[in-house]
């Protein structure tokens, strides 16, 4: 039975915990359920194979906005990669986070420790980003293996995917703090589906009339596709600062809002 040294012990913990232990926690949980993690790889891969093979046979080549032509599969692949980063990040930042927040009451327990609401938000975003980026990384390998990359710039698609995942994760997390029930997630679905179809994913932006181009250009998935496609096709220039800034701001804002909101919801 316990002696008093068991109770008091001798160790004193380090005084500066951060969001890192939360990331550790999420990783530990998914190590127990590797299938749930792995399944996320499959969807965009199926799209790439079915449309990339089937439709490519009909379409053949695509002329990029800068006048170059590439194979349809090479056109589609970076869009799937960007979508991969988005979906991977959003899944945990929305459904996963909501479940932990409202049902598991994870953060009621976490905020009784020295961790702060912002640490909770950072931990979630880190994990969701890792997940989104991991899917994207696997996708890059597949693209390279299939010969769908035409430039060494493709390697930069990885940090780009990381940034994209970060932006979506933080924004998704912030939005999720306002969700009252599972039904509310329909709003997110309603936003994602058209984004997936219209963000110059399946054909170039120039296919749209001007007014629609303007709308599409401001959506995050278009920015993500644009960034990744520019890198994989080697169309690299200062204009890439636009999507980069876009996601940096989206991520920073989302994180800030999410941190505040977690505090408001839990520390009542």
């Amino acid at each position, binding site marked *: 039975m*316990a002696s*008093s040294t*068991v*109770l*008091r*012990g001798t*160790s*004193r*913990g*380090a*005084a*500066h*915990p*951060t969001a890192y*232990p*939360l990331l*550790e*926690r999420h990783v*530990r*949980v998914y190590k*127990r359920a590797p299938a749930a993690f792995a399944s996320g790889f499959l969807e965009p891969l199926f799209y790439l194979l079915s449309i990339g093979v089937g439709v490519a046979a009909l379409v053949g080549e695509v002329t990029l906005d800068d006048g170059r032509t590439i194979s349809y599969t090479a056109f589609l692949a970076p869009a799937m990669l960007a979508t991969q980063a988005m979906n991977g990040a959003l899944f945990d930042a929305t459904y996963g986070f909501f479940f932990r927040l409202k049902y*598991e*009451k*994870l953060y*009621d*327990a*976490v*905020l*009784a*420790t*020295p*961790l*702060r609401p912002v640490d909770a938000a950072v931990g979630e975003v880190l994990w969701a980003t890792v997940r989104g980026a991991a899917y994207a990384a696997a996708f890059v390998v597949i693209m390279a293996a299939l010969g769908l990359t035409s430039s060494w710039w493709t390697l930069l698609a990885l940090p780009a995917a990381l940034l994209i995942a970060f932006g979506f994760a933080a924004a998704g997390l912030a939005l999720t703090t306002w969700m009252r029930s599972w039904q509310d997630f329909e709003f997110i679905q309603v936003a994602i589906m058209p984004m997936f179809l219209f963000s110059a994913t399946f054909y170039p932006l120039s296919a749209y009339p001007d007014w629609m181009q303007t709308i599409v250009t401001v959506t995050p998935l278009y920015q993500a596709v644009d960034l990744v496609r520019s890198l994989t096709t080697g169309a690299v220039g200062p204009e890439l600062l636009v999507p980069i800034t876009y996601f940096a701001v989206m991520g920073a804002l989302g994180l800030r809002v999410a941190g505040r909101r977690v505090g408001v919801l*839990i*520390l*009542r």
Partner: protein
Amino acid sequence: MIEAQALRKAYGDFEAVKGIDVSVERGEAFGFLGPNGAGKSSTMRMVAAVSPLTGGSLRILGLDPESDGPAIRARIGVCPQEDSLDGDLTVRDNLVVYARYFGIGRRDAARKADELLEFVKLTEKAHGMVEDLSGGMKRRLTIARSLVNEPELLLLDEPTTGLDPQARHVVWDQLHRLKQTGVTIVLTTHYMDEAEQLCDRLVVMDGGLIAAEGSPLSLIARYSTREVVELRMGVGENEAAAERVEDLAERVEVLPDRVLLYVADGEKVVEEAMARGLEPRSTLVRRSSLEDVFLRLTGRSLDA
């Protein structure tokens, strides 16, 4: 350890804590007693630095919860009323991961987890999932979890609710040991025997206010008589019986199943009641307990 003045907590328009003064010294075991909704948990959450005050002042370990929340929480242990265990992790990982939240290194966290599992007798369940534990086991795990950071101040909100009698005694025993090592303990409870066993000092809360404060013995001396006579009459006869013996006691309480007479000398009163022709199914003379204090102050019986 804790200094609260005119402490208030409101949720919207509703005031759950209406201005209480509480002071807890280092090494003390302090209790909050009170009926459901008295404001005990609301108070505990403010002290745990997870609920902002609505009014008054509060200092914990000499620090201000408003600005030093993380520093306070690093040094206290909290067992909330509702278990908030991590359902995605194993029993042992619950402790390891929680220790990591305090910035405790991996090896120390693992060692601490094993010690604490032993401490609350859950070693056999170490690798099971939380959802497979019984209610009482979850409670013990939550108590173990509150100790991972070797807290100076331990806040326990109804620590033994849902435990079987044996497990309760084990927990009491543990808490006594903790107290001996100098840990300050603040707990809420609905069990009067628990309060008498564990608390050096306690307050009775009712309706967001403190109704009385003192050691268990002093409260009994102040708010009750030396002895209590319990008369169990037939169903529906309690009211009538009470009227016939009112004058024999300092105070009379009529409960659904019995009449309580607060008196100095119980045997004498029983004799006199019989002489007046009362025919109780059973009688009992006992010493006053905190239960009687509680009944007097809140007008509610705990087991009713």
